[in-house]
């Protein structure tokens, strides 16, 4: 195992150890926090594919997080009420099955990403940031005014969706589901970035024109990466909705987009386990400092500033440097 692979495994193992340790010591609240970290890390792994490897600074990934959440909420609430989600053009029944909801959430998010990506990838740099943000805000305001599903108040569903053979209400079992999906997304990311597609994507980030001179069309590459990235974030959104049994427009807001970006930058841009470390540290700080002051995010801001200025490789970059010294 290479040094990077060892580090990635160690970070993931640390998260799993926290959850199991908390379970053994009878602290289900901490297990739930670890689950939250795993789900947010999953969103970060998704964003990392676009931002870290593709160089696409999307400031609107909350739109995919939120869409994944809303798909879950809508299906679950219809299943509870016993009404169909829609009867036109054909009847789609509600569902309380995670295995049915996840693909639906990912497909809907991917479709949204095709549209958003195709339009925003015509621009680059600060315009790309602004266009992705604008799309996310559009959907955010739509959700606020969507009375049928709670509008501004959001949408609650009282029963967590089910998974065959598991009790999803047991914190450790729901953590296991989230952690396995996180591991799968990390493995998928690793495969993609090492494939010729992934290499070309990274090459396009380094220089678009040179990639074209090699006969590759960067737009197709970047759009594919953007859609894959969005689908992973959509899956995270679905899990997050299930974790809280609640979705609201906040999941779609630009604060959320920013938070997902913070996980990636804090942990290490373009590093496989970067978002895991980033989300973990974020949750830890929120818990430790959130009790001290409601302005804890000011300290997070300082930390972020320090990372960007002095450790552009993020937490994982620091750890990797430490390992090299040993």
């Amino acid at each position: 195992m290479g040094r990077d692979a060892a580090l990635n495994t160690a970070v993931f193992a640390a998260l799993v150890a926290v959850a199991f340790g908390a379970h053994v010591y009878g602290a289900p609240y901490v297990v739930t926090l670890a689950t939250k970290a795993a789900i947010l890390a999953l969103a970060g792994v998704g964003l990392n594919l676009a931002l870290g490897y593709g160089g696409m600074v999307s400031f609107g990934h909350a739109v995919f997080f939120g869409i994944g959440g809303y798909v879950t909420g809508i299906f679950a609430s219809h299943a509870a009420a016993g009404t169909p989600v829609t009867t036109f053009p054909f009847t789609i029944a509600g569902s309380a099955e995670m295995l049915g909801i996840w693909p639906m959430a990912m497909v809907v998010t991917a479709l949204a990403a095709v549209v958003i990506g195709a339009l925003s990838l015509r621009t680059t740099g600060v315009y790309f940031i602004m266009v992705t943000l604008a799309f996310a805000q559009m959907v955010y305001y739509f959700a606020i005014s969507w009375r049928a599903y709670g509008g501004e108040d959001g949408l609650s569903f009282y029963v967590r969706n089910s998974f065959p053979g598991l009790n999803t209400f047991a914190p450790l079992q729901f953590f296991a589901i989230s952690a396995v999906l996180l591991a799968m997304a990390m493995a998928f990311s690793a495969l993609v970035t090492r494939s010729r597609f992934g290499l070309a994507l990274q090459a396009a980030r380094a220089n678009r024109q040179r990639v074209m001179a090699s006969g590759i069309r960067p737009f197709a590459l970047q759009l594919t990466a953007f859609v894959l990235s969005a689908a992973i974030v959509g899956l995270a959104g679905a899990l997050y909705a299930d974790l809280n049994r609640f979705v609201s427009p906040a999941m779609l807001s630009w604060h959320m987009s920013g938070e997902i970006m913070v996980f990636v930058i804090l942990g290490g841009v373009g590093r496989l386990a970067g978002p895991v470390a980033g989300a973990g540290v974020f949750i830890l700080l929120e818990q430790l400092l959130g009790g001290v002051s409601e302005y804890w995010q000011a300290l997070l801001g300082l930390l972020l500033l320090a990372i960007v200025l002095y450790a552009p490789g993020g937490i994982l970059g620091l750890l990797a440097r430490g390992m090299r010294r040993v």
Partner: protein
Amino acid sequence: MSRLLELEAVTAAYGPVQALFGVGLGVDEAEVVALMGRNGMGKTTTVRTICRMMPATGGRIVFAGVDLLRLPSHRAAQLGIGLVPEGRRTFAPLTVAENLAVAARPGAWDLGRVTALFPRLGERLGQTARTLSGGEQQMLAIARALMTNPRLLILDEATEGLAPSVRHEIWAAIRALKQQGLSILLIDKSLKEISAVADRAVILERGETVWSGAMADVTTQIADRHLGV
């Protein structure tokens, strides 16, 4: 011998500033053509226009029977134009092997053949491109263009700023490529080395073709008049 690339009265502009005023040149199959001229006369602009990295405002560019004028640059590459850009641009964060894998298109040129041409690259496959020396980066840039299995290789200042021993290695590789029957369009400052490898020469002055003919006919007078500083 059949014509591979043909430019006729090509004009191009950087925004409002016209850069090419009528470039004509031709490259036959298995021929090496030198594109010459002083600095700022439009050599790199011509190359960029051929590769569709900048639009031509007029004229005709035909490659292997296909009109290039409206094609995007990745299509030009797919048709078989392999560019080694000025300033040896590699994909810095990727390793040597990855740089080559990204560009690879099916054909006779593969990893084995490019590392046979540049054994030094074969020794550094796992190293990231940014850690290579200037000469090695230049070799990588040429190897990457070859991996696309081009029908025409364009070398823009391939030996500029390199140590004499490395230059020597690269010229040897260019001669080997010529012997293998590859068509090459070459820009370089060293008249001596160009003379040894080019079949024909095209001289540009202020964005216009002012002379073209056999390399052997580039006399001292012509060189002094169009190339001297």
